[in-house]
């Protein structure tokens, strides 16, 4: 009897507390959610819609719907070349970032303070410096009147007209690697922070050479960082604008610069939107299938560190 009279107010209190708590997360995240749905969701949907509108150079955007822009992007060899070039540059840039960034991260990891902190700052700091500034540096280095050209001339390797890597694939890739390699370092660094260096000692104590220990024991443990860093670098390169635009110019068009040109030079917004949508879809497909491949391939050994 007493138990009954006690239990009822308790349950009431518990449920009323629950009822009022239930809406708290929605109040807390509501402003940001509404902001994002309106200012991110709507613009993306409108871009998708725009890609289906007709376009005429004299009358501008038409009233009728069409898939002709998609047909054009998917069938025209002009666009094939642009997409192929973009992904080829991305692939080479990614490989170079792995080859440069992963060893550098490991070297940084094996340094002792204060050198470690100093060089970590030197390596990651450029990420915070404007891309325009960093790319300008490469223009000054590899351009026709640049340091590289002067050096080549001094060594007699280039004629009096100078030597320029501007508007070449090599130039674009060098500058892209420079811009993006810190992402690889930070990604591998995150893996290294979880690494137990005594596993290296264990391998050495079992008779492995330093190189074998590195290859068989250390590398597999930092592989998650290399894999996720590669994804970041590849996806960013594939959609990068500033560097290919400044160094590649009009001659070496990539997807991002062709979107820019359709929008701001040709004013053909529907076609520009179509290229942007195709780029977005390809990026999503690549990211998702890569993540799934990594997960299936390495799930057991790398656990949650894989992503």
């Amino acid at each position, binding site marked *: 009897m007493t138990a009954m009279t006690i239990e009822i107010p308790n349950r009431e209190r518990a449920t009323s507390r629950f009822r009022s708590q239930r809406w708290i*997360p929605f109040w807390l995240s509501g402003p940001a959610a509404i*902001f994002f749905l309106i200012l*991110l969701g709507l*613009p993306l949907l*409108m871009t998708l819609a725009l890609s289906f509108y007709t376009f005429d150079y004299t009358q501008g955007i038409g009233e009728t719907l069409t898939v002709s822009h998609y047909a054009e992007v998917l069938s025209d060899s002009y666009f094939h070349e642009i997409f192929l070039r973009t992904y080829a540059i991305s692939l080479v840039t990614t490989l170079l970032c792995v080859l440069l960034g992963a060893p550098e991260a490991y*070297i940084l990891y094996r340094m002792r303070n204060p050198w470690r902190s100093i060089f970590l700052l030197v390596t990651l700091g450029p990420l915070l410096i404007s891309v325009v500034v960093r790319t300008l540096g490469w223009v*000054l280095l590899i351009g026709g009147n640049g340091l590289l050209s002067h050096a080549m001339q001094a060594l007699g390797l280039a004629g009096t007209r100078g030597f320029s890597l501007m508007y070449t694939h090599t130039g674009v890739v060098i500058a892209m690697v*420079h811009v993006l390699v810190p992402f690889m370092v930070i990604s591998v660094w995150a893996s290294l922070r979880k690494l137990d260096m005594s596993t290296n000692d264990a391998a050495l104590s079992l008779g492995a050479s330093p190189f074998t220990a590195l290859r068989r024991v250390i590398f597999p443990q930092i592989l998650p960082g290399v894999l996720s860093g590669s994804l970041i670098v590849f996806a960013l390169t594939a959609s990068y604008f500033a560097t290919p635009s*400044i160094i590649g110019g009009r001659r070496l068009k990539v997807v991002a610069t062709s979107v*820019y040109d359709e929008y701001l030079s040709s004013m053909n917004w529907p076609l520009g939107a179509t290229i942007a949508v195709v780029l977005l879809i390809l990026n999503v497909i690549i990211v998702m299938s890569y993540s799934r491949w990594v997960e299936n391939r390495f799930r057991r050994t790398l656990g949650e560190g894989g992503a």
Partner: protein
Amino acid sequence: MSVDSRRNGRTALVFHTLFVIFLMAPLVVVILVAFTPNGYLSYPTSGFSLRWFRAILDRPDFIEAFYHSLNLGLVAATLATVMSVPAALALARFQFVGRDFLNGLFLSPLMIPHIVLGVAFLGFFSQIGLGGTFASLVFAHVIIVMPYTLRLILAAVMGLDRETERAAVSLGASAFTSFRRITLPQMLPGIAGGWMLAFITSFDELTMTVFVASPSNTTLPVKMYNYIEQTVDPLLASVSTVIIVLTVAFMLVLDRFYGLDRVLSGKG
């Protein structure tokens, strides 16, 4: 043996030196060119001059763009932080319908190429009549910097010992007092780190801003990009040098305060 095995060998140090040279070379070149006494792109072989720094003062358009970037960064980073704090508390502390969706939504700008965001915002803002306004720049920048503030603040909330809040309440603090005196101060490093990363991201952003900015509302990176498209002269180098110096100062504060590797890898 164990000490030796943890040290870098000669090859490693050579590699490291070349790597650092590769990273630093473009920045050093920019700074060198900025001090040239000549009227054209060249290295200061015959002496240092500040003429190209003085030249900046004769370009009110660059100075105005700089102020626009500064204002934009301050407002966008602050707005993103103000929205991220409650959102992070909701995501970290409550299980609710749509939680995973919201988490994905808030982080999605990291996955969407900025060029795509740029054309999307261009279409959207010109459609609703906000095209080229400062407000449209702010809205667009809040979207792209909020993943950074949210990630760091989320990490701060998750890393917080909730028993400290219970301790405060057991000592007589109200829920509000406990939040203000115990929770918020412990989140502060994450909030400040997130704000700073958001500010610098907004300040540097080019790809998306190129589409949203207008001649009257342009940012420094857009201004410089448009300038490079036409000509490359030592003025760009001196402006870049100013940006490098300011960014390095900012970076040192950020590193001192929070740890650059932690900020950039988004881990608490």
